[in-house]
């Protein structure tokens, strides 16, 4: 993404062009990057999930910049619509999950107003463009389910009334991989709702130095000077990706073949679901768009599938690295795919 360039022909930028989406993503990337240093790869994946209409689970240690990232993302998306149309949707909300949290703390609740004598709905923190669900494994399964349902359905039900969430509802959940005492780890079935699970490692020395040296600028809000992205632009880009980025039948076949390979692998207890494949398609399309292409290529499969499938596999005893298993399943399929292109139709 650092060298993200538009390699397509310089046609006029309009709402119906890949280059348009590419430009939107570029703007968003630059703004987030101004706030978060040394995490370009994570930003790329977060943007992929955002445009692919998926959610993301970050597995990392406290102080690794996840709140900064989510906040920068939320602040980069503006909603210029007037209030009534917009409802009470905020651009960014953070929810700290604790064991005593209740579902209504997320969704909001109806409050009696003595002035009018009626109940009015006070929306919870879930009504936002970007929601940071911090330490999601610390809360009870009840709250987890409510959250995951909201993520899947994009709506919440309060007092028997179903209220839709914003179309651009994007969750960045986090969990601490080490401190597991008193937690409710998410089962594989629930992990399935997240498009990516990203395990963040410590950033390298140069990046860390850069974080320190740019501390003052970033405090002063260097990113805010950069042009933001509107909610509409993101929704348009989503539509455009779905419409314009080609997924060739060969790519679809490869996707299914890889899933089959994973399902028959002896090291895998439970293979990937069909939903995973369905979710993978927009993610692959988004990555193609981010790299300025109007077709999904083999390299998209190679780059994204370990991220998409990694947390959806249940491995048998003896196998510890899902990445190794996925790599083994990818290699023959990618080789066949590469050869198929030379053979021609």
């Amino acid at each position: 993404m650092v060298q993200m360039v538009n390699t397509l022909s310089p046609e006029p930028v309009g709402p119906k062009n890949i280059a348009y989406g590419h430009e939107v993503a570029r703007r968003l990337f630059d703004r987030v990057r101004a706030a978060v240093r040394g995490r370009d790869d994570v930003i790329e994946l977060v943007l992929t999930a955002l445009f692919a209409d998926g959610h993301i689970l970050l597995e990392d240690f406290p102080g690794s910049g996840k709140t900064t990232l989510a906040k920068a993302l939320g602040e980069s998306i503006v909603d210029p619509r007037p209030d009534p149309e917009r409802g009470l949707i905020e651009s960014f909300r953070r929810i700290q999950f604790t064991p005593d949290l209740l579902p209504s703390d997320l969704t909001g609740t109806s409050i009696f107003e003595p002035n009018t004598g009626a109940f009015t709905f006070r929306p919870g923190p879930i009504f936002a463009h970007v929601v940071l669900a911090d330490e999601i494994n610390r809360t009870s399964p009840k709250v987890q389910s409510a959250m995951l349902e909201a993520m899947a359905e994009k709506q919440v039900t309060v007092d028997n009334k179903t209220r839709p969430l914003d179309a651009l509802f994007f969750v960045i959940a986090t969990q601490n991989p080490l401190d597991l005492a008193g937690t409710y780890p998410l089962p594989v079935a629930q992990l399935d709702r997240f498009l990516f699970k990203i395990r963040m490692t410590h950033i390298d020395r140069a990046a860390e130095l850069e974080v320190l040296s740019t501390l003052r600028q970033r405090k002063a809000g260097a990113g805010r000077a950069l042009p933001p992205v509107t909610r509409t632009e993101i929704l348009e880009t989503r539509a455009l990706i779905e419409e314009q980025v080609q997924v060739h039948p060969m790519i679809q076949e490869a996707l299914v073949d890889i899933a089959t390979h994973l399902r028959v692998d002896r090291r895998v207890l439970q293979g990937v679901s069909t939903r995973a494949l369905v979710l993978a398609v927009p993610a692959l399309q988004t990555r193609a768009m981010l790299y300025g292409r109007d077709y999904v290529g083999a390299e998209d499969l190679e780059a994204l599938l370990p991220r998409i499938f990694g947390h959806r596999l249940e491995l048998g005893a003896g196998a510890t690295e899902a990445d190794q298993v996925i790599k083994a399943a990818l290699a023959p399929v990618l080789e066949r795919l590469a050869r198929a292109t030379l053979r021609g139709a």
Partner: protein
Amino acid sequence: MTSSAFALSVPDAAPPRPWLHALVLAAAALVLCWPVTLASSAFAGAAGALFGTFLAERLILARWRLWVLISGSLAGGVLGAFLVGQLLDSATLGELLSPTRLLWLGEALTYGGLCFFGSVAIRTLAIRFRAALALEGGLAVLAVAATVSAHRDGMIARPLEVSDWFWGQGIDPVFAFLGVGLLGSVLFAGILAYGRSAKRALLQLLVVLILGLFLALRIHSKDPTLDPKGAGAAQGQEGKDPRQGQGGGGGGQNQNQKPNDDLPSNGQNSQERPAAVVVFHKDVVPAAGAFYFRHGAFSQFNGTRLVEATIPGLDPDARHTFPVELEAIPGPQHEALDRSEVATDVALLTEHSRMFALADATVVEPMANPEPARFRRAYRVVSKVLVGEYQQWMGLEPGDPTWDDETWAHYTQLPKDERYYQLASDIKASVKEEYQDDPLVLALAVKSYLEKSSTYSFKRSYAGTEDPTGDFLFSEDRRGYCVHLSHSAAYLLRALGVPTRVSAGYAIPTSNLAGGSALLIKQGDAHAWAEIYLAGLGWIPIEVTPEKTDVEPKRFEEKDLQQLLGEMARKEGRNQRQAASGPKLIDLLKKLWSYVPWALLLALAVSYAIKLWRLYGPVLFPGKKAPRLAYRAALDRLAMFGLVREHGEPRERFAQRVKDRVPSFLPLTQAHVGSAFGSRAPFATLDGARLERLPLRVGQELATVVPWWRRVLGALNPLSWWWSR
């Protein structure tokens, strides 16, 4: 495009193939155990190796340290051996089972356990370090080589278990063994290549096959027994190399200096090598107790030793040139008493420079080679073999009544050394007075005296002196071998006035016939013996066999080989059809082989044509398939210099990888991949450059980064396109 931090490097992981390794190790265990133990234990060993291999596959998943695994399996082997020992020694088991069963069980447990723990150790090592795979291959090769090594030096009947079966099928086991070796190499190459690239595996197999074919033909056309060094050493060893003039003790001993020194190192091997097979047409029991095959007679004393007679007409029976037609051999044997006529077919297994024939030959005749693949030459000899008992010839006069004085002098010459006469008269004095003029009795007295007083030995050499025979005869302990013994007997008898000569050739005990009619002659059977002439009887052998010896007695163990070769020698046209089928196949193979260079040349031309077409076809004739073919042309150019996409690597990442060296390849890749995957504007990345010119530009860019010698090599490589993918 950038490779993100999550970009995967797809390893060239070869998936485990336990069954293939298990098969190889089990077969190796079976073959190695077979000759040293019971058949059941050999199968137990194979089963042990099989289980060991599969256990190793499991163990290696347990993530234990390698040294733990290796030392664990070794300790397991030692512990197992100890436990088996304890078990077999225990009284209760002894009572339960019969001794045979106990032996059976012990052997099976021992070999099964040995192979089990051995294969665990070898497999774990080989899984962790691919280089240790060589150990496994080495074991397989060793197993085959150890089995087949008994087959060398013309011992075509060994190993019995294997060759018997093949002979039964009418197949020469040499080809079978070559086939086994070839199969082994193919299998091993298969293991090495398996799981990588089908193309590479195919190529390796092809190379192995061609090499194997080449070796098979080489080995077939060049019999190892032809090796002149080995044959020379074997012949020279007992001083009977015909070119060296073996007659005189001195001559023989001079020659023997070297062979004697050589004996411990090369002796056994060449001694055991079969030299010829003789088929008897009739049963005969020779008087001497052995069959004497003569290829030369030495009767003329030249001052230091006996050599072949230079006077024409003497020793006419000692013919040594091969016959070209039916030829009679002149000599006294024709009219002699007590001789039985017998015809023999001789088939030579090694090249001989002199013909030898069963004594005493009357007629020789060339013969069609019954098995050209096996024998060098064949001829038929009719001999009059001396039969009867030596006693019945007592009282016969020495020499021939027709001899003149010159002939008499010729057969009774000896060194002018008083000691011979002294010793001879001492021996004569020990004989009863009434027999003191009987040549046969005198000869037997000399024989018996020498047998009692000397020791058979190869350890002493009497080389380089005036009279080597005297040095032997008048030494304290009289250590020497047939050359010395026969010369001593000849000189002593000549001193007593008995006409004597030394003959050389092969001597085989009659017992070797073992009831059959074929006789195997080995190089170690070479011999020299003394002969006296009795009137009316001709030359009769006087064999001196010392009672003491420091040489290991010869044992005859090649009955099967003898029988087998006899059968082959006997074929002679009777089985022409079968004999012809062998050479026919070889001829066909040779003919095929002669086409190989042309086929290679044709293949070379075709692959250059393909290479050129793929490189320049899309440039010269751009068409509908342009992006694909132009991309392939560029890919071929990269492959020429070893820049090849790895297995499972997407084309885009490959393009990224070589981008620094070959920038033009990237837009070409994008155009190709884009049009393959349905991009609406696949050529947008070309920036207006013409697609069909891009391969040429790739070539130019490569020329700037690749050294000139690599460019030449790449351009010459006819198969570079084979690697582009």
